């Protein structure tokens, strides 16, 4: 369990993270989404005690990271996969981490096997591809068999097989009752692995919801209708008990199937220029959500976001 409470980080006059409060629960994969620069990595660094919050705090299993005893046994983290001494072999990198946290040496072998690094274990990390570095980063994260995993964009640079492997790994870890917190800037990627969703934009919390609720809420299955006589169309549809809302582009969003609408407008002789099924993807929903945040930030006080 990770508890983020009123977390704020300012760099001079720039605010990277502002008043973030959320919890990451065990037994499920929690996705941490936001566009680049939203404050995801800053938040993760504060979780791990690397950056000092301007205000607020993060507790992992009830204590701040700095107070964890042999922290790699509790929290496994992957931040920047390339951040390994380029002259040290993968094996020695893992050995030194294990030694400092009193993790038995045979566990180093285990995570090397687990991450498929056996043939590269004695190569210097500087010669690794991004994909192999990611695997080494995952190996380091799993080293202490931790109950909490914090992964910053773990599928970056992985080949399709590696991406599948990471997805299975995260699901598997969550199924074992562990806490898995994974950041991504791609909603489509998150949709495949994530149970719960934390979305931030400009350092603020935008959504804290289950993935299914997010999908239900943000991908409407209605129909967009365009007509030169919107008032008449409204009356016709309202008469049939159908909800109609104005859309920003001048069309009407109608909560009914295209067949039903077609029959109704034909029966009443309402001219219609366009009938389109709404297929807003998750990615669009995500972009809308975060774009709202940007507008909100740019506007003078008096905005109307909840």
């Amino acid at each position, binding site marked *: 369990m990770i508890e983020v409470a009123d977390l704020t980080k300012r760099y001079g006059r720039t605010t990277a993270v502002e008043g973030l409060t959320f919890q990451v629960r065990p037994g499920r994969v929690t996705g941490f989404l936001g566009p680049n620069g939203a404050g995801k990595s800053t938040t993760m660094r504060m979780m791990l005690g690397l950056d000092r919050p301007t205000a607020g705090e993060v507790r992992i299993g009830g204590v701040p*990271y700095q107070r964890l*005893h042999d922290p790699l046994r509790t929290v496994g983290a992957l931040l920047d996969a*390339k*951040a390994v001494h380029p002259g040290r072999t993968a094996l020695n990198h893992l050995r030194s981490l294990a*030694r400092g*946290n009193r993790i038995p040496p045979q566990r180093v072998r285990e995570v090397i096997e687990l991450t498929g690094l056996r043939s590269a274990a004695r190569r210097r990390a500087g010669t690794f591809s991004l994909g192999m570095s990611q695997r080494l980063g995952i190996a380091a994260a799993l080293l202490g068999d931790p109950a909490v995993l914090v992964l910053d964009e773990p599928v970056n640079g992985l080949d399709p097989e590696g991406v599948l492997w990471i997805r299975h790994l995260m699901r598997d870890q969550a199924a074992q009752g562990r806490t898995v917190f994974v950041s991504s800037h791609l909603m489509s990627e998150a949709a495949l692995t994530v149970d719960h969703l934390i979305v931030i934009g400009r350092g603020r919390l935008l959504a804290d919801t289950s993935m299914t609720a997010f999908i239900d809420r943000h991908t409407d299955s209605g129909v967009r209708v365009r007509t030169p006589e919107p008032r008449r169309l409204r009356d016709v549809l309202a008469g049939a008990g159908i909800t109609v809302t104005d859309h920003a582009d001048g069309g009407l969003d109608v909560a009914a199937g295209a067949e039903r609408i077609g029959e109704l407008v034909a029966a009443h002789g309402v001219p219609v220029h366009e009938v389109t099924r709404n297929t807003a993807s998750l990615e669009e929903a995500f972009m809308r959500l975060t774009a709202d945040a940007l507008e909100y930030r740019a506007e003078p006080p008096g905005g109307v976001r909840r």
Partner: protein
Amino acid sequence: MTSNSPRAVLAAEWIKVWTVRTTGLTLLLTFALSTGLGTLVALSWRGDIERVVNFDPLFAGLYGVTLGQLALVVFGVLLVGSEYSSGSIRASLCAVPQRGLLYGGKVLAGTLVALAGSTVTVIVTFAGAQAALGPYGTTLTADGIPAALAGAIAYLTLICAFSMGIATIVRSPSISLGVLLPLLFLSSQGLGNVPALKPVLRYLPDQAGLELMGLAGPSADGRFGPGYGTGTALVILLAWTAAALAGGYLLLRRRDA
């Protein structure tokens, strides 16, 4: 208890020291530069002994060390600085979030290696130079020699620790070397010839080092050393080292990684 075991942290840092090639390379270079130069100076002096001004067998023995320190400084700087240049400092801090503990472990591991390397280097450099001087050489047990050699070992070890402190402060190997090399070489060998600067320069670490190694010179004109005695020299060096290490610690504690 809410921290890593200090012994485990030291052991982890010890593994880190010995699992990069630069450690072996810089230590070997320290040894080769010191012994090679010491022997070379001794040989050239022996061949022309009549014309050597202020002949001092100790100077021949330890002169090489003043150049060998260059490689040892690089060792200290890379040990700390590579954590920042590679970004691995974040992995290290995730593993050992008590920053003082991580820092202490790293500095101690590096200093122990520097102490061992310095001891071997100083003794072999001295012995090599005396062997090259032949009949003009002195011995390990001669008056003042053990103290001078101990002083040289202490100087090299402290300079390495000093370098680690500087590297922690500036967080970049190249900037560290840009600060340290002029500080340790330019002051005595370049700016040292500007009389007006002497009152200040004499307290720089390399000057204290010359004094500590007994290389201040019998001429006592201050050319090779400041002449304030070995006790003062040791205190000055310890102060420099403590200041650099404390500065590194305070910044490491305060800064975001």
